[in-house]
């Protein structure tokens, strides 16, 4: 009887020891590989597999994934021994966070939370993922024809991060073309597009915008003035190109251009300023000092 009891106790002790050793080893491993654990998830699956897995609950999956992205982006606090908390410099796995946003967009390309949070983090230091952010915004813009914000953000990124004023202008004009977009977008877009050498594009987009607007609408006259100014710029640009083709160089000033006879006179500027050409040959309609 005693022998059987001893054997049972011994077996119990061995099993308890095994359990304690394996569980504590697992916990230790979990602590060591904590950050790699957070980079593993369903968002690493290919888009087709994700869609198949989500079935009819794609929207809920997208909600969960944006929340996961938010959790990975959030601040990490650690309890101090003396009490209170301190902020830890967190290691952000940007490619992984980008994959989460992509997965969320695969599930629900229209969800605003995805592109707004992505825009708030990905193009900035230290992630520097401007091109990737533009793709996310492009998907959102195509899926949300009622929303001007994705194109507005694309315009901002093109101007601020990529230093492409012409592209930025096009994006702002596309944003201005969406319903209920603020008036300033068309003015800003036209200005940037022209600055970037896309005057023709700016004119076409502004004309298309005017066809949808009521002349009595506030801001209509502002857009019309801007359109006329751009048409003036385009006329001068075309004359400058002809001049260059004929004489093999750019005109040094607008006076030289009109004196050559290629352009009889400068077009009227609705802003009551003289058109101006800078040293690189760019034409302006709103530069009073013309430097």
């Amino acid at each position: 009887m005693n022998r059987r009891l001893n054997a049972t106790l011994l077996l119990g002790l061995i099993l308890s020891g095994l359990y304690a050793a394996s569980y504590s080893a697992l916990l230790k491993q979990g602590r060591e590989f904590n950050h790699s654990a957070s980079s593993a998830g369903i968002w690493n699956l290919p888009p087709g597999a994700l869609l198949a897995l989500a079935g009819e609950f794609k929207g809920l999956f997208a909600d969960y994934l944006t929340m996961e992205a938010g959790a990975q982006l959030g601040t990490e606090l650690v309890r101090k021994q003396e009490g209170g908390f301190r902020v830890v410099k967190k290691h952000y796995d940007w490619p992984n966070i980008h994959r989460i946003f992509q997965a969320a967009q695969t599930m629900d390309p229209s969800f605003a939370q995805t592109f707004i949070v992505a825009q708030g983090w990905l193009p900035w230091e230290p992630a520097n993922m401007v091109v990737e952010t533009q793709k996310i915004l492009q998907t959102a813009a195509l899926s949300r024809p009622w929303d001007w914000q994705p194109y507005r953000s694309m315009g901002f990124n093109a101007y601020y991060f990529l230093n492409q004023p012409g592209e930025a202008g096009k994006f702002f004009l596309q944003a201005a073309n969406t319903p209920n977009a603020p008036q300033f977008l068309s003015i800003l877009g036209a200005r940037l597009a022209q600055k970037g050498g896309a005057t023709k594009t700016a004119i076409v987009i502004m004309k298309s915008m005017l066809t949808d607007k009521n002349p009595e609408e506030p801001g209509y006259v502002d857009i019309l003035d801007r359109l006329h100014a751009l048409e003036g710029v385009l006329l001068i640009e075309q004359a400058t190109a002809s001049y260059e083709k004929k004489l093999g160089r750019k005109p040094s000033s607008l006076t030289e251009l009109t004196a050559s006879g290629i352009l009889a006179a400068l077009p009227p500027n609705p802003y009551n300023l003289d058109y101006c050409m800078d040293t690189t040959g760019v034409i302006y309609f709103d530069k009073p000092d013309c430097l």
Partner: protein
Amino acid sequence: MQALRNIWFLALATCTEGIRHRALWAIVCLAALLTMANLGVTNLYSWDLGKVSVEFGLSAVAFTGLLLVFFLGMKILADDLERSRIFLVLSRPVSIGQYLVGKYLGLGMILLLATIILGLSATLSMRYVLWKYPAYVPPDFSWLVYVMALTCQWLSLMVVLAASVLCFSFASQPFIALLLAVSVYMVGQNMELLRRVVLENPQAGALSGQENLVIALSWIFPNLSFFDKKYAAAYGLAFSGQEFLLLCLYAISYSALLLFFSAILFKRKELA
């Protein structure tokens, strides 16, 4: 006429049996919980709160409906066999076809009741969210589209129920029938995805060149993704009446066809 009466009585009896399972009480509790959860979950987001609320509400209806089909529905069908109650029914002038249609309609009534209860509770929570955060209501949001999406959800459940009845009619064990029904549901949810991947992508891996097989499969399995209108309801997208009518027609014809085959297969089943 007698056939219709038999079907009606069977449907009523099945519905009553379902209610006696206290499933509806569980659904009412779940509805209350989901209503509260909807309010809580929506507050976790900063944008598109209307979308989150609508999608959560409709997903709750879908999820509960699936639980009812796979567990309550299959249990009611299996109980008839296991407790030999089916012999009581079939010993009367009731055909196997009438028995299956009656059971199907009775379970459909339970699903309808559950969809109405859950749909109403989801509507209440959504109304609250949309009232509290009017800035986040999608510009073209329509309650009509929401009701149509809810109806499509119920139609989708009816198709899954018909597929479950078919699986039950030939499977030797209720558990196998359950597994088959779940598989049909999963295949049905991804049928459209598979069809599009194979037809629109020339490099579809192992399925390249198998377009005809995939097209054939898409005609055999239910295409459940057509019924998924949560996205349209959540963002207030267009959902035409014509599409809605076509979906109703598809659900009715496909379910009727499955019940027809179920009756044929059930006659061959070893009941004893």
